[in-house]
């Protein structure tokens, strides 16, 4: 038997027994009275049971109080009054001579209203409790999903292949050249710190990103040795430019993976950042040929594009092309924006509408990360200031 029927039968039985109890106590219980009480309870059960589909179809449990209360009141009135009217044949014979039948009919109807009110209170409190529990469960599941997404993002950004290769080279370097090994540990620590702290913030300054890139290149040079030569050239006026975290590192990783790691003699990877007509031009070149159908190459660049879209909407472009025979260039064009401006604009937007991030792509800059990132860049935005 379902919980609903248990409650229905249990409730109306209790109601019946209670009425019988009162009648017995008053010493007025007769066979007609007994039948009347059972009849009224039966009507109550029938009335509420017939009314239930209406409430379910209208999804009353999801209505706000302002719309729910009038409906429930109407329901109580209709069911209770029907019960009152339908029990008239049982009441009339019991009315003492000379008494007004109306008084009895009305008091009986009012009693029915209260019975149905009680029924409604039980019904809705049960459903509201269940709903709250479900909502809490859902919220919890969403939270877990967000955490998992964050972890996945972090793991992708930590790049385990790179990390373990670096650690392995470090182990070799410790016996070969302890001083270089010490340097390498410092680079690795700085890079990890950067990845953990800033990779989830919506934007960093170009200067911060370049620090990350320098650490990254230093570690890759230990791995590739003379096979990797790098040229980094950045307009110093652009150091406060807003860039998505890990953008340059992703581009360089891509360049190294396709331009250096696959070539026995390696080559030169270059990074040039300049300003032209109020736009920021980023050029990353690597030796090699562009392979059109290389699905894996696309993954890194798709991420980079997505990052750019999140930060600059449609105002940034990324293009990969074969520049000359043997040189692949990745060209990124950004609007000239200072990181501090982007962050403060973002901060305001967040305050206006804190629930703006709902899509999976936006889960990356979920609230805790955003909070930590907001304060951070302003500190490093004054590199020239004397200590």
């Amino acid at each position, binding site marked *: 038997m379902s919980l609903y029927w248990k409650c229905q039968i249990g409730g109306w039985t209790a109601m019946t027994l209670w009425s019988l109890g009162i009648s017995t106590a008053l010493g007025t219980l007769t066979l007609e009275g007994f039948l009347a009480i059972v009849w009224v309870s039966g009507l109550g059960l029938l009335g509420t049971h017939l009314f239930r589909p209406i409430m379910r179809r209208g999804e009353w449990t999801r209505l706000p109080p302002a719309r729910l209360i009038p409906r429930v009141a109407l329901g109580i009135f209709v069911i209770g009054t029907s019960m009152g009217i339908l029990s008239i044949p049982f009441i009339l014979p019991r009315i003492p001579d000379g008494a007004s039948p109306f008084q009895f009919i009305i008091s009986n109807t009012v009693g029915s209203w209260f019975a149905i009110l009680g029924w409604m209170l039980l019904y809705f409190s049960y459903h509201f409790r269940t709903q709250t529990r479900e909502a809490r469960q859902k919220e919890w599941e969403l939270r877990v999903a967000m955490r998992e997404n964050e972890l996945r993002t972090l793991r992708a950004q930590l790049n385990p292949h790179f990390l373990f290769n670096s650690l392995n080279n470090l182990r*070799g370097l410790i016996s070969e050249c302890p001083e270089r090994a010490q340097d390498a540990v410092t680079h690795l620590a700085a890079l990890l710190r950067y990845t953990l702290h800033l990779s989830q913030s919506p934007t960093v300054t170009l200067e911060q990103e370049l620090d990350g890139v320098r650490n990254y290149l230093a570690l890759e040079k230990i791995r590739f040795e003379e096979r990797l030569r790098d040229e980094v050239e950045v307009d110093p006026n652009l150091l406060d430019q807003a860039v998505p975290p890990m953008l340059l590192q992703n581009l360089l990783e891509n360049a190294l993976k396709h331009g250096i790691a696959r070539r026995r003699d390696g080559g030169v990877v270059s990074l040039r950042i300049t300003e032209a007509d109020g736009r920021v031009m980023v050029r990353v070149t690597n030796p090699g040929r562009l392979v059109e159908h290389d699905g894996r190459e696309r993954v890194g660049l798709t991420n980079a594009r997505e990052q750019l879209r999140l930060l600059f909407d449609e105002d940034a472009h990324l293009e990969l092309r074969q520049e000359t025979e043997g040189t692949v260039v990745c060209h990124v064009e950004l609007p000239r924006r200072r990181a501090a401006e982007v962050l403060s604009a973002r901060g305001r937007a967040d305050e206006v509408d804190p629930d703006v991030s709902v899509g999976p792509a936006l889960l990356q800059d979920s609230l805790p990360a955003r909070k930590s990132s907001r304060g951070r860049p302003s500190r490093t935005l004054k590199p020239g200031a004397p200590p």
Partner: protein
Amino acid sequence: MSSLLTALIVDDERLARLELRRLLAAHPRIEILGEAPNAEEARAALAELDPQLLFLDVQMPGETGFDLLASLDRVPLVVFTTAYDDYALKAFEVSALDYLVKPIEPARLSRTVERLLQSPAADSARTAEDEEPETRGPPPLQPHHRVFLRDGDRCWFVELRQVRLFESADNYTQVHLAGESPLILRSLNELEAKLDPRFFFRANRSQIMNLNEVESIDPWFGGRLMAKVRGGHEVVLSRRRSREFRERMSV
């Protein structure tokens, strides 16, 4: 037991090779014959030094470790070294696959070395050296020789004795093992030239059978023979090959 395994280290990163060499210094029964930074030099070193064991990095510039193995007629014992739980290693059907993750744990290396020194492949590789007849060119492939089979994304290390039947399919050859039949990019004629005919018998234009896997030989129509090879393969020998088979058996 004074067994010794000769080894070659193949890794594109110098520091990684140095580190492995240092770690292997604790294992005097592994004798490192040389190193190679890429597949091409590894191939030359393998031909020259003929090591029993190969420490092989999966990801290298140019050809990968798998490409190297697929290009070899026979492969030594192989221990893969990889920086990260490489998805490529999941391609292996054989669970008896050795791989070490970098940075390599000395204890894990010790266990691997111990297992390698006790593996029958290490023994047979040594004793077989003496049996091989003096011939010009590379010696023919023996049943105990290990080969690397690659079919699409899946890979197998098998000893030739595990192969029941080679079956021609255009430029490819279907290699019938117990349960599985990978398709490899080698012609049957190429294979025949490399296999030892004492063990692998060319039955007809499209099949080479492993004589140790033949369950029965029966007369067939037109003076031919029909061999039943384990695994339910029925191989009808051509007229000429039937005659040769009879002569060989009567000797």
